[in-house]
C-alpha cells in the first residue's frame, strides 16, 4: 500500500515497482578479494528503522531509484534516482517545461 514518488513519473503505487535491496552497499571491484564480496553480498543488516534501499519502476519508466524508507512504519523520507547522471537529465527536462 506504499506510494512511491518516482522522480521521473510522479507518485505511483508500490505495485508498479520492484524491490531491489540495500542501497547502502558499496559493491567491491570485480577483482576484489572474496572476503570483500562476502561482506557485500551476505553480511547484511536487518534494519528496524530508516534504511536506504533500491527499487525499480518496473511497470513504469524502468529507472532504478534509491528510497529512504522506515521499515517499521513504511514512511518514505526521500526518493532519488540511483544513477547520478539522471539528475542533469531531470534538471534539463524541467527547463523545457
Amino acid at each position, binding site marked *: *500500500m506504499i506510494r512511491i514518488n518516482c522522480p521521473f513519473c510522479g507518485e505511483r503505487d508500490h505495485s508498479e515497482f*520492484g524491490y*531491489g535491496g540495500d542501497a547502502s552497499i558499496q559493491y567491491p571491484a*570485480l577483482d576484489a578479494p*572474496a572476503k570483500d564480496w562476502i561482506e557485500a553480498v551476505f553480511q547484511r543488516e536487518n534494519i528496524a528503522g530508516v534504511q536506504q534501499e533500491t527499487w*525499480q519502476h*518496473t511497470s513504469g519508466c524502468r529507472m532504478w531509484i534509491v528510497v529512504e524508507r522506515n521499515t517499521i512504519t*513504511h514512511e518514505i523520507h526521500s526518493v532519488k534516482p540511483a*544513477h547520478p*547522471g539522471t539528475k542533469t537529465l531531470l534538471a534539463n527536462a524541467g527547463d523545457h517545461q
Partner: protein
Amino acid sequence: MSGHRIKNGGRIDRSKPINFTWDGMPRSGYEGDSVASALMASGDMVFGRSFKYHRPRGIMSAGVEESGAIISIGEGDRKDVNVKMTTQELYQGLVATGQNAWPSVRFDLGAINNSMSRFLVAGFYYKTFMGLPPFEWGKGTWLWMQYEKIIRKAAGMGESSREADPDHYEHAHGFCDVLVVGSGPAGLAAAQTAARAGLNVWLVEQDAEHGGSLLAESSDTERTAALSELSDLGVTIMNRTTVFGLYDYGVAGLLERVTDHLSSADPRLPRQRFWTLRAKHTILACGSLERHFAFGNNDCPGVMTTQATRTYLNRYGVLAGEQIVLATNNDSSYSTACELARAGASVTLLDARNQINKKVAQKLSAANVDYRAGHTVVKANSGAEGVSSVLIGKANGSEWTATDQLPCDLVALSGGWSPLVNLISHRGVKPVWDPSTACFMPVDSSEPLTMAGSAAGIWNHDDCIKSGHSAASMAAKSLGKETTSVVMPATGGWNSPIKPLYEVTVPGKQFKGFVDPQHDVTCEDIRLAHREGFVSVEHLKRYTTLGMATDQGKVGNIIGIALMAEALGCEIPAVGTTTFRPPYTPISIGALSGQSVGAHFRPLRRTPMHNWNLVNGATMTEAGLWQRPWYFARGVETISSAYIREATTARKSVALCDVTSLGKIAIQGPDATEFLNRIYTNPFAKLPIGKARYGIMLRDDGFVMDDGTTWRLGESDYFMTTTTAHAAKVMVWLEELLQTRWHDLKVHVTTVSEQWAGVAVAGPKSRDTLLECVEDPGVMENAVFPFMGVIETTLKGGIPCRIARISFSGEMAYEVYVASDFSPGLMDLLWPIVQSKDGCLYGTEALGALRIEKGHVTGAELDGRVTIEDAGLGKMASPNKSFIGSALRNRPDMQRHDRPRLVGIKPVDHNFTFHAGAILCSEDKVEGLGEGWITGVTHSPELGHWIGLGYISGGHEAWYRKRAIATDPVRKGNVEVEIISPHMIDPSGSRMYG
C-alpha cells in the same frame, strides 16, 4: 418467544410483500426486512445448531455480531454459507436453509452430543483421539487422521457449493480527504463538518441503510435531514459497504455488496466490489456492540441483546416477545423497556444494580414496566422451541441467590457496551481497559486516525454528535481548512455507573453458561483452560476456540477474558486482549481475486507466428506466460509419435521451430563490449563483428543465473538472447548494474523481445533451405558464414533479417530473426522449401528431445543452485578476467569435486523409462535425499531408448561402472540406471560445424 409483526411503524414497506422459503417452508416478509426480522415475525425460533453440542440456536442480535442465527442462502452454484440471518436483506424468492443439523435444525439427531456434553469439554477431541493410547502412545497421528473426518462432519459450518462461482467481482480504487466509517449520529456529524469545510468526504456504511443506532429509534427526522445535507454537499455516500481493514498509508479495504440483496441482478453488475480507498484522514465512527453475560442456559433461543429488541421493534416493526424479561447492568436499557411495553409487551426489567434512579423509576412505571433493582437472570428454562421462563436471583455480594421463577418468552440482555476497536487495532493501536465503563477503549493513534461516537466510548447521543464534529474539525484543520474547533466530549455519559457483570453464579449450583455461543465455549471451559495452564489470552483462545467462530469474538471475548481474570485473581488488563486482524467481517475469496480469474488470472503471451503455427497443426503448450507449439501431430499421431518423428526429421533433413519466446535485448553504446565482458564468464572483449558467442552469466554469489548467445552486429551494437524463463530477470539485472553500480559505463540496454520474431532452422539440410530463401546465396557459404557466424541480409520478397548459425539441437542449424510483422511471411517462405526436402515443423517436445541428447542445459538444469562447473561448463569461466560472480564462485564448497554434476542417464534395461524429478540413489543406499536427481527425460530417436539429464554427486566419472537407482516411489518405483556423459550423441560436435 413468539415474535409478531406490529400493525404500524418500522421502516418496512407493508405494501410490498416478499415471498421466500426457510428450510423448504414458504414464508413471507416485507421490503426492508432482514431474513431474521421476517422469520421472527413469522414466529420461527430455532435457526441453527451449535458447533459441538448441537444445541438449538436462535436470533441473538440484529447485526454483524450475530452468533446464533447463521444459515445458508441460495442454491446450487450460488449457495452462500455461514450467512448471518440478521444482516441478509430479504428479496423475492430467497432460499434460506439451516446448517449443521440433520435432518433439520428443529429436530437434529446430532443433539445427542448435548447429553454427553460433560465429556466434550475444551480439548476433548485432541486429548481423546490424538496419539490415542495405547495404540499410538507418543507417536504420530494416524488414528487422528481417520477420526478427524468424522469429527469435522459432526462439528460443522455450512457446506459450500462444489460448483464454480458463477458470479464476477471487481476491484476498484478510490481517493478522498476524509473517510468516515459508520453513519450513526457521530458519523453523520463528522461527515457534515468535513464536507462543510470543503473536503472530499466518503461516508461508508455496512448496512443497507444509513443511520446506525438511529435506525433503532422511533423518530427519523435527524437521520434524513443529515443525509440530505450530505448529498447536497457532494459527499460520496456508500451503503452495503464494509470497511473490513485499515492498512498503511491511510488505505482502507472496502467490500461493497452490489447484488447480494437482489433476486435478479443485471448480469453485467459484479456481485461484490473490492475497494482500495486512500484517505488522508480516517474517522472511525463505527459504533459499539452490546454485550451478553453468562447465566444458566443463556444460549437458549429467545435470549438476545436489548438493542436487538429495539431494532426489531423500531426498524422492522416486529415485537420480539410478548412476555419480556429485560436484564441489564447499565442505563442504556430503560428507554427500550418503555418502548417494548408501549408496543404491547409485558416487560419486567431487572437491574443488577441495587438502586434505580427515581426519575427513571417514574418513567418505567408510567410505561407499565415492572422493575426490580438488585436482580438479574440466573437461569433460562427452555420450552418446546425457546425460553419459557427464567429463574431470577437477588444480588448477594458478587454472587446471587435464586429467588423466584418468571414466565417469559423473551430475555433481553444488556451486559454493557464494547466500543468497536477492531479497525484501529489493525493499525497496531492496543486498546486499554477502562474499569469505569467496563470496556476496552481505543487510545490515540499517531496516524491521521480519529475515533468518534460510541466507538470512542461516548454513550450519550448528543455527545456522540459533538464527537463527530470534533473529529472532523481536527481532520479539516490538519488538511489546512478553516473550521471551528469543537472540544472532544469525555467518554462515558451514563447517570449511574455500570455494574460489571460477566457471569451470574449461585453458590452451590452448577449452570451451563455460554461465553461463545457459536463455538460452544462455556464458562466451565474457561476455568478448565485455567486449571490446565492455558492462562495467556492467546493460549486460552486456541485451547477453547473462544472467539474463533465466524463472529471472531465480537460476542464472547470480553466475558472470556473477564472469567480468566477472575480465575487468575487479577484484573482484566493483566489478561489483555487478543489482536484483532482484518477482515472485520468475512469476505468472499471471489472478491479478493476480483477480475484475476480464468483467462485473466495472468497475462497470455503469443508469438507473432501463433496463428501460423495453429493453422499448420500445432498443439500448443504453456512455457511461462508464453504459448508455444508443443508438437505438430500428423493424422493419428500421438504426442509421442509426433515428437519422435519431428526430432528424427531434424537430425535427418531439416525442421523449423518458433523460438520467438527467447528473451532479446539490444545492448548498445561505446562501453557495450566492456559491459558484456563484465557480466559474462567467458571473454567477450575480442568477439569480432559478425560473430556470436554462447555466454553464461553468474549472480554475485557465483551461481549460474542464465545462458544465451550474444551477437556482435557492429562496433558498439550487440544483440543478446536469453532463456525464455529468465528474459525479464536478466533485463532487470542489466538495468540494475548500469544504473546502480557502474555509473561510468556508457551503455543502453533495450528489450526487443517483442520486436523480433525468431525461427530455428535445424538439420543437415538447413543451409540448403536458407540458400533458397536469401536473395544473395553467396552469404550462406561455409567460409563466409561458419558456425557461430552472424549475418544481416535480405530474404526473398524483401524481408530484412538477421541470421546466426547457432545450434541448440546439435545439428547444423540457424536462428533467423525478422521484425515481428514479417514472421508469418518468413514461415510462408521457409515452409514450402522445408517440405520439398521432407522436412517438418517441430515443437518444444522435440526441441527437448534434441537438446537432452546433446546434453544442452535449460531452465530445468540451471535452477539457481548450480555452479558453472556443476553444469559441465567450467571451461567457460575465464581465468584471465574478473566478472560478476568470479570472486564468490571460488569459495571452497562451490569447488568441491563431490558436488552434483550434470550427467546423462540411461536405463540399464532399455525397455524401461524413468521420470524427471526422480531421485538418484546409489545401489546400496536407496533412501533419503539420495545422490542426485533427474531434470529431463526423453525418448531418444537416435539411440532408440529412453535417456535423461540430471545431476549426481561427482559427475559421470565418479559413477563409472557403478549402478544408480532412479527412485520414484509414488509414480514408477525404482529403475536401475547407468550414469553416462551428458553428451549422448555427437560429442565432438561434427554435425554443428559441418
